[in-house]
């Protein structure tokens, strides 16, 4: 167990692809390294599998990139890196200090020489009537349930939202014997076609996509485009879902409603970067629609605007595993340079090659994120009695009223309505509130700005904070 007030040469936040890659490289040198992750298992959202202690999954050919990632995890586990799972980052402070909580029991104040944020991304959601009903799940949740615990969300399910991730979730559900009622894609079909030339440059993604589509095709699952979830209905939990067609501007076409009887609905509308910790650390952020919204600004060595803080992976632009792998490598090598530990002859050509690869990944990022644009008319079409902030039950009407009263930025909206003040601290609703503010105030994302972030990032018990002054 680690000691309070310890100092580490390198602290890495997050063990997803970029974090684990950086750790794997840095482990070969004589550093004190701490790698923390909030999850039970290391590997982030992509590198998930049925845990050994749970049981055995019939073998399936794993994609190459995943094999690489799982090997990194095994290697890092066998080395002298301090690994902490079930550990939450609670705060980032001046003088290279961070506060973490382990397993809901203890907190530790720690110092770092270099901090690497590899905090990844989360799903984005488009609120609709009844999305708070039990039985409405995120596409990520159903993936995690199946991949990490071997449990189906339900026997029968409908999938709705936008992007390739819907198809990945559908594939996993069908593979495990679920009955899929349909895939309701928000964006038009031609949006996908635009994507194809890019996909050829990323051959691994192409074969992945091909596998999903053939499974869905042969399972005769209806895939409908330009479909929008109007309402999820049910007494205590989900019973039926109403879906309608939207035109090319994102506006609902009356009379196109269809009802699906289902106890489970999975929804997902793309991804947003987990920027909260870097934001509090004072790292400069930037808004880029093509990189997936608000992200951490980095130079080509993955350095943020703050001294000795680097960022890698999805938080610098939503782009998937290959990009995260590349950025994890770059970050590790620029950390080696910081400590003067690099092999001077080898590092320069290697970094040059990695940086060239990164440019290639960034062009994929642009295309990938263009798939997820929610049309302004769709956002304006959210009915007034739809809950936007799930924790505090703030509906669209309250948000609109507050904007009309003069709340023109996130923080004033928060003070007036209590939106984002619940347990999730705005992680679910903030991205859509930014969109609502932009559209209703007719201002740019930069003019709207961001909700302020304060520690603790996530709820912590007073009991867990008690030991903070012990050494």
């Amino acid at each position, binding site marked *: 167990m680690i000691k309070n007030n310890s100092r580490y040469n390198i602290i890495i936040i997050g063990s997803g692809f970029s974090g684990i890659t950086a750790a794997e490289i840095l482990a070969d040198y004589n550093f004190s390294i701490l790698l923390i992750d*909030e*999850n*039970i298992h290391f590997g982030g*959202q992509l590198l998930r599998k*049925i*845990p*050994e*202690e*749970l*049981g*055995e*999954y*019939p073998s399936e050919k794993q994609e190459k990139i995943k094999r690489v990632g799982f090997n990194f995890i095994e290697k890092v586990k066998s080395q002298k890196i301090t690994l902490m799972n*079930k550990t939450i980052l609670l705060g980032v402070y001046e003088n290279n200090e961070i506060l973490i909580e382990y397993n*809901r029991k203890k907190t530790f104040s720690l110092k770092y020489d270099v901090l690497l944020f590899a905090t990844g991304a*989360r*799903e984005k959601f488009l609120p609709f009537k009844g999305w*708070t*009903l*039990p*039985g*409405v*799940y*995120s596409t*990520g*949740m*159903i993936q*995690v*349930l*199946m991949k*990490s*615990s*071997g*449990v*189906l*969300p*339900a*026997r029968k399910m409908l999938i709705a939202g936008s992007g390739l991730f819907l198809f990945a979730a559908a594939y996993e559900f069908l593979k*495990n*014997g679920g009955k899929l009622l349909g895939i309701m894609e928000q964006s038009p079909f031609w949006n996908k076609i635009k994507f194809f030339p890019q996909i050829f440059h990323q051959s691994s993604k192409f074969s992945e996509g091909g596998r999903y589509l053939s499974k869905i095709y042969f399972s005769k699952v209806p895939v409908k485009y330009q479909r929008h979830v109007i309402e999820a209905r049910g007494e*205590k*939990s989900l019973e039926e879902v109403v879906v309608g067609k939207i035109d090319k501007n994102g506006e609902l076409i009356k009379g196109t409603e269809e009802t699906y009887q289902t*106890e489970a609905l999975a929804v997902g509308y793309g991804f947003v970067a987990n920027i909260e910790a870097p934001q509090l650390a004072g790292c400069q952020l930037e808004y880029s629609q093509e990189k997936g919204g608000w992200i951490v600004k980095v130079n080509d060595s993955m350095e943020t605007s703050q001294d000795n803080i680097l960022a890698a992976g999805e938080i610098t632009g939503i782009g998937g595993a290959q990009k995260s792998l590349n950025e994890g490598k770059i970050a590790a090598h620029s950390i080696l340079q910081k400590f003067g530990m690099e092999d001077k002859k080898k590092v320069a050509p290697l970094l040059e090659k990695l940086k060239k690869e990164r440019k290639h990944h960034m062009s994929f990022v642009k295309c990938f994120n263009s798939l997820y644009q929610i049309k302004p008319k769709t956002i304006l079409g959210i009915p007034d009695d739809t809950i936007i902030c*799930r*924790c*505090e*039950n703030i509906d669209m009407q309250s948000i609109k009223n507050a904007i009309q009263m003069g709340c023109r930025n996130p923080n004033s909206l928060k003070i007036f309505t209590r939106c984002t003040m*619940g*347990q*999730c601290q705005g*992680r*679910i609703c903030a991205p859509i509130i930014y969109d609502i503010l932009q559209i209703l105030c007719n201002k740019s994302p930069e003019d709207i700005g961001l909700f302020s972030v304060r520690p603790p990032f996530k*709820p912590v*018990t007073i009991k867990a904070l008690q030991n903070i002054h012990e050494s």
Partner: protein
Amino acid sequence: MEDLRINSIKRKQKIKLIVDGKKVTAYKGETVLAALIASGYKIMRTNPVSHKPRGAFCGMGICFECTMTIDGIPNTRACMTEVHEGMTVETNDQK
């Protein structure tokens, strides 16, 4: 109640949880959320503002919709907690 576990996975160790005073079967390595969903639980808590039932939503520690009292610690995310033999779980479903 129907079991939603994927049956092509050979599970190793069966364990018992006490959920709202009732015995629930789970398997070592599952999360509390997975064990509850597998046994047919849908409602995880009652929202303190609307007093309406809520289920799990993100399943990966972000939304806090599956928070419940686990081994006496309140507001613990079921999706981020592994099961163990004899674990006591009190959902926040206030019926």
